């Protein structure tokens, strides 16, 4: 039973990470109806930003500032830079195509993703960059419940993930910006006619969504301990899965989808075999899509004529 709970905790941690990436993905889909294939690569950029912040402050062995402050700087900087990058991508590549056929921005998004991945390869090289998390956040600083151990990084990831998700939920449901986002998601033209600044709303959505991916990237770096230019693609795939399982465009769906995916992955790895994890996850996704194309929490789309 201890094994079960241990896997559950591990799964929830990874799931929180997936959920954060999936949230940005699903938000962008909500307002633009665009599958942003470049979203996973923003995760990768965030992870690199975190790595360079650690190096900047003396490296993992000799951090020159208090560790909590370091973490705050990592998260804030990663969120800000990836958020800005997301806004720039929208401005540069997606906005001119807003009224083009649906397939055009999708292909552009694939191009952006490929471009970002190879830019990272050019700038940072193919060799993995190691975070060395245990050097500044000790393994023993976690908590132990019976035989289930939860280390400090996992607690951090879970707590921050929950805080961000709750915050996002409040933002979308309670604030003026959130209301504007929902309005744009329902009908962009009608929202524009009602005086909503659509361009600003879409930019803001991209900023928040991309920033979440950046934060998730730092979390991923802390958890997995290494960064390579190709992690973005895998993260993107996982985010798709989470978003689609939850129902694309639905924010609670993305959260639950992410957690579900993380737990499922963890159990498959723990109880069956790590060789087949990805294959089984893909099979799960395709099964969900066949049985419930609108996802577990999504509503069936009405086709407008």
């Amino acid at each position, binding site marked *: 039973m201890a094994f079960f709970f241990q896997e559950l905790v591990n799964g929830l941690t990874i799931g929180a990470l997936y959920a954060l990436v999936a949230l940005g993905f699903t938000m962008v889909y909500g307002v633009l109806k665009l599958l942003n294939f470049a979203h996973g690569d923003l995760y990768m950029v965030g992870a690199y930003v975190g790595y360079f912040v650690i190096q900047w402050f003396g490296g993992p062995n000799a951090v020159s500032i208090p560790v909590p402050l370091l973490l705050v700087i990592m998260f804030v900087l990663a969120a800000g830079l990836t958020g800005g990058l997301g806004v720039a991508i929208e401005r540069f590549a997606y906005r001119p195509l807003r009224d*083009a056929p*649906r*397939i*055009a921005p999708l292909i552009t998004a*694939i191009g952006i*993703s*490929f*471009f970002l991945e190879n830019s990272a390869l050019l*700038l940072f090289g193919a060799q993995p960059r190691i975070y060395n998390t245990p050097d500044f956040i000790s393994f023993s600083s976690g908590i132990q419940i019976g035989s289930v151990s939860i280390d400090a990084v996992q607690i951090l990831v879970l707590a921050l993930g929950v805080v961000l998700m709750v915050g996002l939920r409040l933002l979308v449901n309670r604030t003026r910006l959130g209301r504007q986002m929902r309005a744009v998601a329902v009908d962009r033209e009608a929202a524009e006619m009602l005086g909503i600044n659509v361009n600003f709303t879409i930019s803001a959505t991209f900023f928040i969504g991309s920033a979440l991916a950046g934060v998730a990237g730092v979390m991923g770096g802390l958890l997995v301990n290494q960064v390579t230019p190709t992690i973005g693609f895998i993260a993107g795939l996982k985010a798709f899965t989470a978003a689609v399982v939850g129902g694309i465009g639905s924010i609670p769906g993305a959260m639950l989808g992410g957690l579900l995916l993380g737990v499922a992955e963890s159990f498959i790895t723990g109880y069956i075999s790590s060789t087949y994890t990805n294959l089984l996850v893909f099979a799960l996704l395709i099964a969900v899509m066949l049985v419930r194309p609108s996802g577990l929490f999504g509503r069936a789309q009405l086709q407008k004529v």
Partner: protein
Amino acid sequence: MSLDSQPPVAGPQVGADEWVARQAQRREYLPSWLGAGQRRLERVGWWPRLAIAGLAGAALPLLGLGGFQLQVGIDALVIALLAVGLNIVVGWAGLLDLGYVAFFGCGAYGFALLSSNQLGSNGIHLPTYLSVPIVVIGTGIIGLLVGWPSRRLIGDYLAIVTLFFGEAFVEFTNNVAPSKLGGPNGIVGIDPISIFGHQITTNAGYYYLLVVVLVLTMAVLRLLDTSRTGRAWRAVREDPLAAASMTIPVNRVKLMAFAFGGMVAALAGIVFAAQQISVFPTDFDTPILILIYAGLILGGAGSIAGAAAGALVVMVIYDGLLRSPTDSGYLFYGLILLTLVVKLRPWRRLVAVLAATVALGFALHAIVGAISARAVAGGPASTGWVGGALHDWVIVPASSQAAGNWGYVLLVCLLVALVQVKGRWRTILLVPMLYLAGFVWETKLAGQPAITRQLMIGAILIVMMNARPQGLLGARRVEVNT
């Protein structure tokens, strides 16, 4: 009583077919004499044009192309065949298939399993005339199975399902049944293709085979394009709902596109496997998919000739030109110059920008060189006369890694800024950007062709979609206002 059983009506027909056919003919031509040439070329008819292109392709090795060029040609033809097949799904039926490369893999792996020692105790060595139809039809059926979800999935969901199908293929061949599929080690020792008892074992043989296969496929697809099915595909692409209300069986038509696309990809896979003598899971991964897309988009989705030409151009650049520092230098500066000549009007502005760029370069080089000799110590990475001409123009520090990195980031930022600003500022920004492009090329990109070519593929997709979505050869369809 079904409508299908009625005899065809003589005389002008009004209906989905007619409407789509008329719609397809509304197109824009290039201005002035270019447009006249375009119209004249169209009057020649499609099959003489195809035959001439095929003969020209077949004549190329006679000009004395050596081993390396021949290999580039083979790779380019394989990708062209794939792009032509992808055109059915993406260009005609308008379905974003991100797992297309898996059909290529299915064809290659299918042929490999049927023509090697992999299955059974002594292996299966089916003769070509049996294995090719089995693999092609089998892949077509897989195409139908993958397309099946598209019955219920609208647009974007299909892209995701196919993307995962593509990923699943790579995972599958990597992990499942390593004794049969070979895992990461792939399958080696594949039989050559034999036609009429003659085994093809040389690269030249495969080159000719590919030219023949490509030309035949293009001819068949051209006939398919003008058929009832072809028109149905385009109707579904433009508006599935309108197509459905005009009695086009939308789901069946989509499935057919998947099956046909898969079959063409299987053909490419078979020739690829036989020519390489081996297949590996990584041969069928996402970069190849994006390469095919880049070819299709560059040439123009929706046109057979465009897809083939675009893929050939992309592959010759990707595989051939970018490998040698001399050729890639010509290509890079040539493309920049060409873009400027085409885009910058009037010519006075063009001359001013070029002169300013040249002057800026020499001035910067002289100033920086006077301050620190080390900062200009590294020569340009381009060789040949381009490198010689640039020697006193571009600043290349002795240790150029960090400088190149910052230059690259700055270049991308400038590029984004350039698109955002308008009017005079654009011209002014262009000068430092051109110089920076030269700097980044010489310090960073030219030295890393493997990454540069991937960047080029990504850039093609982004730039083409924003600047000319119909591709270089494709004609823009005139939108009908509703």
